[in-house]
């Protein structure tokens, strides 16, 4: 396989995973928040906080991917 094709294949594979990661991170944050709210009985504050943290986690992955690509 040529070097260019290999690089393009790798990039395509990585890029195809980005969307799913953002969605899943958001939902994990939401689920964690809902669970902690039920444990500590502090509805709805922890849900909101962890939802925002989940969104941040998703976009942090995204940002890390982009900055790594920009370096290369």
């Amino acid at each position, binding site marked *: 396989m040529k070097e260019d094709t*290999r690089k393009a*294949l*790798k990039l395509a*594979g*990585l890029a*195809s*995973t980005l969307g*799913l*990661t953002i969605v*899943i*991170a958001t939902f*994990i*944050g939401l689920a*964690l928040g809902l669970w902690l709210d039920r444990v500590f009985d502090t509805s709805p504050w922890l849900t909101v906080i*962890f939802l925002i*943290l*989940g969104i*941040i*986690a*998703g976009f*942090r*992955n995204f940002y890390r991917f982009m900055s790594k690509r920009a370096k290369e």
Partner: protein
Amino acid sequence: MEHPIIFLNLLFEKLGLPIVHDFTHAHTFLEKILLPYVTYTWLIMISLVILVKLTVRRIELVPRGGQNVFEVVISAIEEFMVGVTGEEGRYLFPLIGTLAFFILISNYMGMIPGFFGPTANVNTTAACAIIVVVYTHVIGVKFHGLKYIKHFMGPIWWLSPLIFVVEVIGHIARILSLSIRLFGNIFGEELVLAILMVLAGLYLAPLPIMFLGLFTGGVQAFIFVLLSSMYFAGALEHAH
């Protein structure tokens, strides 16, 4: 819906073992370990071991036949993985190579009539994903010692509790995204095949989808290997 014919299930039924067709009906331990995705995982493991044993029984300096094929495939996977993780990650190759073969063969096994692809069940893919993500932390601790915690702390110290929670969420998301991507692609493809069988008759209608399934099976195995070696590389590199 009618149950698909699965060879090993028929065989075990003839032997008098309790077989259930749906995992919601499996109650006893024996019924659970005779579910098709468990038995076909064993079938894949046994056939891989036998295949490799037959190939390496007589190793020659100038390879011939099966040894030739295996050498080409294995060195291609190894070179690809070392290209991602760097030279210090070469010792991780056995895990990556095993995962690559297992996932590729189980993706393709679902394509053969009468067989069942274990990756079309979320338990198999979740097992693979958990092994990979737990092992990244093991090699991180092995490689960096206690300093590995810096990977979770971010660059600014007063933000570190926040970053820690965010990183933990990110690591759980890795497990879920690895397992759900593989499971979704393979299961979705089998579901489309089943629906086409029902809608369009028994003849050549599902053939284009099967062709697509060959493509997605290879691509998903490749992406799983690529992502796991990316995660290993992330654990091996120094904290920013």
